[in-house]
C-alpha cells in the first residue's frame, strides 16, 4: 500500500496535525458552550485515534474528562455487496450512552460522505443524541451525499485521480497527511 504513495506529497505534518486538533477542540468548546455534554465517537481505524487525541485536548481546555468511544460502521455500509466480507472493528460506546448528548463523530478524511451516512444509521440503533456533529482532519471534497463537516482540519481541494492518506503515529508510526496520485484506474476509495 505504501509503495503506491512513493511520489506522494505531504500536505500536513506532525506539528500541523497537533495545531489543527487544538483548534478543533477550541471550536467544539465554543460552539457547544463549554462542551458539557459532548461525546466523541471516532470511526475506525484512524478516526478513533483522532477522537482520543481530541479528548485529551478538550480536557486541557475544559478541565473535565470527555467521554470518548468508537463507532464501527462496517455493518451499515452501502457497498457491502460489492466486496468480500470485511473484518469488523470495535464499537465502544461510553458508559453513560449517547441519549441526549452532543455526539461529535470524528474521522480522518471526508470524501463521498457515505461513511458518515452509515455512521448516522449506526447511531440511530444505539440511541438518540441531542445533536450530531462531524469533525474531520481533511475534507477532500467530491461529496456524493448532502453531508458536511462542522469542524474541518484542512480543506484540501483534490481531483478524483488523487489519493489522500492519513498516517497517525498510533497506527503508522508517524503523523502526516499524504496527497498522492492513484495508480490503479478504479481503486475503491471510501
Amino acid at each position, binding site marked *: 500500500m505504501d509503495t503506491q504513495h512513493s511520489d506522494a506529497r505531504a500536505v500536513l505534518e506532525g506539528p500541523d496535525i497537533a495545531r489543527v486538533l487544538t483548534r478543533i477542540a477550541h471550536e467544539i468548546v465554543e460552539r457547544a458552550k463549554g462542551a458539557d455534554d459532548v461525546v466523541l465517537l471516532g470511526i475506525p481505524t484512524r478516526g478513533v485515534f483522532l477522537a482520543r487525541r481530541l479528548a485529551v485536548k478538550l480536557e486541557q481546555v475544559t478541565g473535565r474528562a470527555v467521554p470518548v468511544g468508537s463507532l*464501527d460502521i462496517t*455493518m*451499515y455500509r452501502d457497498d*457491502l*455487496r*460489492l*466486496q*468480500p*466480507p*470485511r*473484518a*469488523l*472493528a*470495535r*464499537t465502544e460506546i461510553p458508559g453513560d450512552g449517547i441519549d441526549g448528548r452532543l455526539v461529535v463523530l470524528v474521522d480522518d478524511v471526508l470524501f463521498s460522505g457515505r461513511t458518515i451516512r452509515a455512521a448516522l*444509521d449506526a447511531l440511530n*440503533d*444505539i*440511541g438518540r443524541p441531542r445533536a450530531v456533529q462531524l469533525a474531520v482532519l481533511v475534507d477532500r471534497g467530491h461529496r456524493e451525499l448532502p453531508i458536511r463537516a462542522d469542524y474541518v482540519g484542512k480543506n484540501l481541494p483534490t481531483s478524483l485521480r488523487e489519493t489522500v492518506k492519513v498516517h497517525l503515529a498510533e497506527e503508522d508510526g508517524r503523523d502526516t497527511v499524504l496527497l498522492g496520485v492513484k495508480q490503479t484506474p478504479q481503486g475503491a476509495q471510501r
Partner: protein
Amino acid sequence: MQRHLISAADLTRDDAVLILDTAEEMARVADRPIKKLPTLRGRTVVNLFFEDSTRTRISFEAAEKRLSADVINFSAKGSSVSKGESLKDTAQTLEAMGVDAVVIRHGASGAPYRLATSGWIDAAVVNAGDGTHQHPTQALLDAFTMRRRLVGRDTGLGRDLAGKRITLVGDVLHSRVARSNVDLLHTLGAEVTLVAPPTLLPVGAHSWPCEIAYDLDSALPKSDAVMMLRVQRERMNAAFFPTEREYARRYGLDGDRMAKMPEHAIVMHPGPMVRGMEITAEVADSPRCTAVEQVANGVSIRMAVLYLLLGGAVFDPKTAPDATTAPAAAHPRTEEK
C-alpha cells in the same frame, strides 16, 4: 472463507480465528437497546430442519433476524417431505424461490455436503448438524466460549487456543459435536483428549488428531475445559454399557470429580443436558458450568458465520477452488456482478 460451512475440518486456523473475532463484535450487539443490524437486508435464509432441534434452530433464527435477513422456517414434519419428497426436489423448490442461504439439519450424515456440491442450488449451505458427522457452528461456539473463559474476552482477539487442554467425555460414537470439536480444536492448536467407554468410541477414532483415554479421574486434573457429551439414547440400538447407573458412576461428572479439576477449568455441555446421567445438577448449576453461556455465544457465532458467508460480495467459486464449490461453478451467480 469458503462459500459453504459443511465441516469444521474445512476451516483453516485463520478462518476460524476470523469467525471468533467477528463473533466477539457481534456479541456486543446483544448489549444494545436495538439488537439489530441491517447487514443482510434483502437476503433470504431458509432453516431446513429435517431433524428435531430447539436450541440450534432458535439460535440460527435469532442470528438471522438480528442481521435483518428474511427467514423461512422449514421442518420436515408437516411438509412435503412427509409425503415422500426427496432432498433434491426440496432443494430445487427452494432454489426456484430464490434463497441466498440454506441452514440444514439432517439425520443423514453428508446431506449438507450433497446439497452444497450437487449443483441443485446456488445458495450458501450451512451445516446445522448432519447425522453423526459434523456440527461446525457448535464447535465454533464451544471454541468461542473456551477462548473467552481461558484466554480472555479482549486479550483473546486474534488468538487461538494454543496449548489449552480440552477433554471431551462421553458418547463420542454418536456425537457430531465431538467430531467437529476435535477437528476445530486441533486446528486452533488445543490438545484434545477423548474419554469414553470403548464401546462409545467410533472405529477409526485412533486416527483422529487427539488422545484417547478411558479413565475420567486421571484426565480431569490436566484439563482446562471438560466437555460432557450427552448419551444419545435415541441413536442407540444396542447395549453400549451395562446400566445407566454404572455409566454415571464411571463417566458422569459430579461435584467430587469437579473438585479434581484445576481452579480455572470450566465445565461445558452442548445441551440438552441429562441431569443425573452425564452431569449432576450440582455441577450443571455451578458457576463453572458454561452451558447457558454457550447458548448465548451460539447466536453471536451464527451471526458471524452468516455475515462472513453472506455479508459481502458472493465471490466467484472459480477463483477460490476448494472441494465443496467445484460443481457450483457451473451456476455462477449473476445478480451480484
